[in-house]
């Protein structure tokens, strides 16, 4: 550790750390464009210049390492003057088309101009014209007039994906970032370029002109589309009072998690958010002739289970789970169906696996398989014949059962079962064959925790409110456990996923070791 002073504040900094990092740790913001923690500093934007006592010139915060006794000023008049100068240069040839720019509202140029700007335009020359709509591939559009040449995009493609589709062309004032002849950026990580662009130079075709950033609310969650479990932000629109919007979610962005995904997510996770709004199951579909809320539904289900339990026929209970459930839900399901009831048949019905890559995406497309295993589930795929044999009650979690087998097989299986209940976030073909359908929610709408492929446990809070009557499965399971009255006290304490997780850490060493 070394002792340094930033703006007269005494600080301890780790040796080898840059001034920028030390300032960041002390919550002292230093404006920057080209610096990004994932890349080697290039020091080209010149925005992060700070004053260091004893140095004749202003020095780069992004690349200068701290030394014992270093005294740094990040907001002296000289520093502010330099920032104003750099901003004036960056804005001189800038098209100032913020009213039609998707980056507006979250643009570093705007933010810094607010803070350090000149508020007077001295540039009276004719602005240079550049290309405003270069297609970089399926997902991205490049506007060279807005580009501040930070080269984050070029470095991402060179250092992270190692695909190198983009480069710097020409020289001096004609310098431009562009895509190499004949190349397109169509790999699974393209969307990150729009996210790391500090200005509106690379925009997302998926997001362009759809909404404005200031209407969006950021919710933090974990991606559930593969078993990597990348940290994400779900940006949603609360809507307007006079008309309904076609969607709530307008984009997904990567959220920093050094242990899982760093600063990136894949395009499957980024652009695959339509499921959060499409074909959702919003209302309880009660047994015919009934009008049920959640309480009645749970009591009804409890009665069905109790009837079998009282006759010692719990082996006639079948359950189809999925490893898209959270740790807490899988834990409660195990407590109730396996430990308390000894259900006859428990299967898992998961989304089919796909192809993984060597960056983030895993072949396993079910997000919490590792969690299910650690909790002690034997993940068996659905055996229709076993499921239908002498079955009295079938409880299906999730939407994947309907695609696990062919329709006729599923139909004849279900016909053989007396009572069938489906808990699902989406409407599907099975709904009509069920006695009761209960609307559940996706990860983005629930709290809980997940265990990724590497055994990393992450907890998350709802990023979105549930749709309609939708409710998280952990709540249904905790209510059901209590209503069954087999171990009332135990389930009574499970009023939140945090409480459930606490019980898990006491019972399963893995979660005690890896709990947050």
């Amino acid at each position, binding site marked *: 550790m070394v002792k340094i002073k930033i703006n007269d504040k005494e600080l301890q900094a780790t040796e080898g750390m840059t001034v920028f990092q030390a300032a960041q740790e002390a919550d002292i913001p230093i404006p920057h464009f080209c610096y990004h923690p994932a890349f080697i500093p290039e020091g080209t*934007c010149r925005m992060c210049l700070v004053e260091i006592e004893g140095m004749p010139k202003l020095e780069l915060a992004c690349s200068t390492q701290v030394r014992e006794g270093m005294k740094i000023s990040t907001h002296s008049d000289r520093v502010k003057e330099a920032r104003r*100068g750099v901003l004036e240069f960056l804005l001189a*040839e800038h098209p100032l088309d913020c009213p039609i720019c998707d980056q507006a509202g979250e643009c570093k140029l705007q933010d810094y101009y607010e803070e350090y700007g000149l508020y007077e335009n001295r540039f009276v020359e004719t602005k240079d014209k550049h290309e405003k709509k270069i297609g970089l591939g399926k997902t991205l559009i490049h506007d060279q007039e807005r580009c501040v040449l930070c080269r984050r995009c070029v470095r991402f493609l060179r250092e992270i994906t190692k695909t190198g589709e983009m480069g710097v062309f020409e020289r001096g*004032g*004609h310098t431009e970032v562009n895509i190499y002849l004949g190349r397109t950026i169509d790999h699974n990580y393209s969307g990150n370029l729009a996210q790391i662009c500090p200005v509106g130079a690379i925009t997302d075709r998926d997001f362009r002109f759809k909404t404005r950033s200031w209407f969006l609310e950021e919710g933090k969650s974990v991606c559930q589309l593969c078993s990597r479990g990348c940290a994400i932000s779900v940006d949603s629109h609360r809507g307007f009072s006079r008309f309904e919007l076609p969607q709530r979610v307008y984009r997904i962005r990567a959220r920093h998690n050094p242990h899982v995904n760093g600063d990136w997510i894949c395009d499957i996770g980024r652009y695959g958010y339509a499921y959060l709004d499409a074909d959702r199951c919003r209302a309880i579909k009660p047994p015919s002739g009934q009008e049920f809320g959640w309480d009645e539904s749970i009591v009804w289900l409890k009665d069905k289970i109790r009837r079998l339990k009282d006759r010692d026929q719990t082996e006639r209970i079948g359950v189809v789970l999925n490893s898209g459930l959270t740790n807490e839900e899988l834990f409660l399901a195990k407590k109730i169906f396996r430990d308390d009831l000894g259900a006859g048949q428990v299967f898992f019905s998961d989304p089919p696996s796909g192809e993984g890559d060597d960056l983030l995406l895993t072949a396993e497309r079910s997000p919490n398989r590792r969690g299910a295993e650690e909790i002690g589930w034997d993940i068996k795929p659905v055996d229709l014949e076993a499921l239908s044999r002498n079955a009295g009650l079938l409880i299906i979690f999730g939407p994947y059962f309907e695609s696990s087998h062919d329709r006729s097989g599923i139909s004849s299986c279900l016909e053989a079962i007396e009572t069938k209940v489906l808990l699902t976030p989406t409407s599907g073909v099975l709904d009509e064959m069920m006695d009761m359908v209960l609307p559940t929610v996706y990860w983005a709408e629930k709290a809980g925790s997940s265990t990724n492929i590497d055994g990393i446990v992450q907890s998350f809070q709802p990023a979105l409110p549930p749709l309609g009557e939708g409710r998280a499965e952990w709540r249904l399971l905790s209510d059901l456990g209590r209503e069954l009255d087999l171990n009332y006290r135990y389930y009574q304490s499970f009023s939140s996923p945090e409480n459930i997780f606490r019980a898990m850490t006491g019972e399963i060493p893995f979660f005690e070791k890896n709990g947050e």
Partner: protein
Amino acid sequence: MNDDKVLSRFFHQEGAHTLSAYLKHEGYQGAEKALKEMTREDILGQVKAANLRGRGGAGFPAGVKWGFVPQEGDKPKYLCVNADEGEPGTFKDRYIMTFAPHLLLEGIVITCFCVGIHTAYIYIRGEYEHVARRLEDAIAEARAHGYLGENIFESGFGLEVHVHRGAGAYICGEETALLESLEGKRGNPRLKPPFPASIGLFQCPTVINNVETIANIPHIIHQGADWFCGLGLPKDGGTRLFGVSGKVKKPGVYELPVGTNLKELIFTHAGGMLEGRTLKAVIPGGMSAPILTADEIDIAMDCDALVEAGSMLGSGAVIVLDDEASMLEVLRIVTDFYSHESCGQCTPCRVGNPWIRKMVHRMAQGKGRPDDVENIGRLASNILGKTLCPLGDAAAMPILSITKKFKEELEASLAG
């Protein structure tokens, strides 16, 4: 005057560039002495004691630079001779390479022996095609006679020298951009630190010196540091090849002791102003050096004296402007050049120079505005000291000095 000449003393002779001619002028004797009789420490000591300051522009002491190269470690080390000679007004290195290529090669041999280098590159500006060919010939000749290659002077020391031609970018004369270019990349300057002495060419320790700097080495070794200091100034030893251009009677390269008076250089050596012309201003060290007015030229041409006068000795290229020179036109040439040659990676230089250029061109069209001159100065100040490499300063310094010293003339051009 001829007695003072060191580097250029046989430039004028027929076939001066050949090995046989060079051998008649103590050729390769410095290298022989160095390799046979001296240790690396001895050589470094001599070069340090000679106070040989870099002839490329920055004037950094060569011996100190060599001393920065770490001697431990198993990475190869490299020498890059900067023969890019891009600074406008500069044409001295071309003379050395054209008329005394073996002098450069001998300097390279001694330098490499001293620092422990076995591969040297001469990065030569692309336009110097004939000079590059002459260097190639000289290398082949030296190699054939055992002055390059393996086991030079039976010392066990081996060295290969390669000529690499640039592709016409001023920025590749900046030492780290030169390294990038030599590695086959876009010639963008690197962020320093790390300095090339520790991480340079191909990530290995590297010495980068100007042609003229290296060409002084054989003489320092052959005749000693004291002799060398005696030629120039104690803190700034030897002679300099001053390239005089502009409205003088005898433009050309003049080898004179460091510290020669600028006025003497122009009016005695270069024959004074052309008939009927009077001196208006002098750019004393290549275009990036701040301009001196006619009143300021009674000054010693050494690194420190010129810095004190607010300018710099740079590459020793003296550009003489006469009374007919329009300062707006000078400014136009300066800004045209730097806008064109900015590598474009860092903001102040990339945007600032073309912006100033646009203003100057507008002024030249008679569309100047009252605050233009002041704004040009303000923009140049925002470039000065804020860029990644010295090109920003190289552009800002002349612009600032011209707008300050010739403010009235420039503002007069705004009227009407």
